[in-house]
């Protein structure tokens, strides 16, 4: 059990189907649970410890199943989150719309909590179809917008760290 000075925070990974949420989590943590949870109950939970300004933060990551026509993100899973990572696939413009819907759902379920907008798959930069203009509405309220790659690890640590910092400020 944690001692004094340890803060736990629940955060969610939100984004469309196959935007790379699970890969980002994998980059960030050593996964404990099977991927099967995604398809069965629609969420897989992992945990990662961070240190923010001498405060130990335990992030409990709720990695949601990518929303598509077949499976919707359950609002109940978002309840109690202190923040979230909104992930867009840079190579697919349609993931922007999904992100917008999820952002709406998140604000309804969680209230005004910080989020980090991640334009993922930066390793495929040449195939990107998404431009900053397209997601400027999503970026306006985000505490951080960054281009990331689960493949190279670019932006991953930073995204989680920044989100943790923002969550602690509240």
């Amino acid at each position, binding site marked *: *059990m*944690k*001692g*004094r*000075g*340890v*803060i*736990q*925070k*629940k955060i969610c990974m939100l984004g469309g189907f196959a935007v790379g949420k699970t890969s980002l989590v994998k980059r960030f943590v050593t996964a*404990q*649970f099977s991927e099967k*949870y995604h398809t069965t*109950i*629609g*969420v897989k*939970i*992992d*945990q990662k410890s961070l240190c923010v300004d001498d405060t130990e*933060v*335990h992030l*409990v990551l*709720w990695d949601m199943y990518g929303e598509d026509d077949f499976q919707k993100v*359950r609002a*109940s*899973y978002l*309840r*109690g*989150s*202190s923040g979230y990572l909104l992930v867009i696939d840079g190579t697919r413009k349609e993931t922007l719309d999904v992100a917008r819907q999820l952002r709406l759902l998140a604000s309804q379920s969680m209230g005004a909590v910080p989020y980090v907008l991640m334009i993922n798959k930066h390793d495929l930069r040449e195939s990107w179809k998404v431009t900053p203009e397209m997601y400027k509405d999503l970026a306006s309220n985000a505490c951080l917008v960054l281009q990331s790659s689960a493949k190279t690890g670019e932006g991953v640590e930073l995204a989680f760290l920044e989100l943790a910092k923002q*969550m602690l400020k*509240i």
Partner: protein
Amino acid sequence: MASGQGAKNNSMAGSQQPSSSSPRFSVKESKGFSHLRQLLLAPEQHELDRLKTRLDQFSLHPKDVGRVLPDAIRLRAQQDTRLLASLIPVTQEALALSIKQSPQLISDSIAPILGSAIRKAIAHAMRGLMQSLNQTLECSMSWRGLQWRWEAFRTGKSFAEVVLLHTLRFRVEQVFLIHKKTGLLLNHVVAEGVSGQGEEVISGMLTAIQDFVCDSFGQSQDEGLESIRIGDLTVWIEQGWGAILAGVIRGAPPMELREVFQETLETIHAQFSELLQAFQGDASSFQETRLQLEDCLQAQFEQKSRGLPWAFWIVLGLLMLGLGMWAFQAHADQQRWAYLLERLDQEPGLVMTSIQEEGTPTIYGLRDPLAINPDQILSDIGYSSQQVVFRLKPFMDLTPEFVQKRAMIQLRPPSSVVGNLEGTTLILKGEAPHSWIQQAHLLGPLLPGVTHIETRQLVDTDLKQFETLKAELESKTITFEVGNSDISLDQRSTIRDIDQTIQALDQTATILGIFPRIQIQGFTSPDGGKEVNQSLSALRAKAVLNELANGSFQAINLRTVGVGSDRLPALSSTGKAVSQERRVAFRVILPPPASVPKSRR
């Protein structure tokens, strides 16, 4: 007041001047100058003196130190741990001194917390010790224990683990206190020997599963999952408005445990209601729920209905068996002894007069020499001759059985004779030689318990032999030629047979003590004259006597008689029959019976 103080201060200043002030003032100082200086600079001088005095005495002023000490300690402690290090020995010594000087005070101060802590610690340790001791005792050397050791060896598990799995009814292995809204872990306790891992993630997954189930079946969050079962593990979940209590239980928990969980959750809600509402991820405040959660870590092991360890039952069983065997043996011994006494009592020819049962049992009494050997009875019943001692004096038993038995032994009859006592008469049956019958008649009245010997049913073999020989002799004839009294050659062998028969008769008659007479009767055919035939028949009888007279007979007396013809002349006869008429025949004549044996006596 002010002038007074000034004068005092002045004098103080003056007295210190040789050491602290410049010497040139003291040299050149005059009374007027000093007065002028006092007039011009008195207030400043006074202030200077006051400050100087205070500066000199500052470090020693407890009031000032007391004012700054708490802040000073706090600030210094924040800086580093040196102050703490410095205080440790002082505090230790102070504490030691305090305990030494007023132990009661310290004792009173810590008693409320220490007593409870000690009781809890001891109870916990004793519980663990008893449990471990019981299990070790029960499992170490029993057959089941050996099986479990084999299982532990086979599966690679520790013996303790195998014992636990087999003897456990239920055990709460982990208890999670989960914040309901966020699914974050508030506190988590595990039972001894159980390793908790990833409890924060498990907490999240439990919440997610609950959410999933509630969403899927349209239930409200307050009616979430109550129980999850995975193999031998059960997760019981209690819902509260702010927190969830989840207990991971191995085995089959009783329903009472639910109540424990519910009460614990209610208590936590009552105590931490504000903290639960305001929870932002800092679970440190919920550390205080540890004791309450640990109360949920209950376990129940197999109730041993037998209550006592198997070794006790084995010893008790052996004792009971021993006691049973002893009782059985004692009973059997008693029965055997009673049977022995009964048997001895019923045995003919044995009379018990007294019994001494102390030490080696000794039986005193009388024994007829013809009675059974008492050692034989002992052997039949299973005693050795050393176990029971007989002190028996000989006596004569006059019961009919013994009288008969004794009589038959003393008479030494041939095997063909049986005796039967009726009253005082010994009735003998069978066959016996004449001499033995005679002896029996003589000895009979002398036998104890016998007055008469009855031999009417006893066959005298010698007399029987005599009768047989007599009949044989009387059936034989010697035939003669017509008108002739000479014994022809072909009749010689018949003469020899007759001679041997008469010899045998003589021997038998000697044994019987009788003196029979054998009449040798001569016969003729009717042919011829009567006188001639009379004379011829007498010649023929004498001729035979002469042949037989060669043998000497002890008891038999031979006589001849000429009968003549014993057939009437009118009767005709065949030739063969006529030749048979010219013969000599024999007739054995016994003397009157009464006189025969008596004459021999």
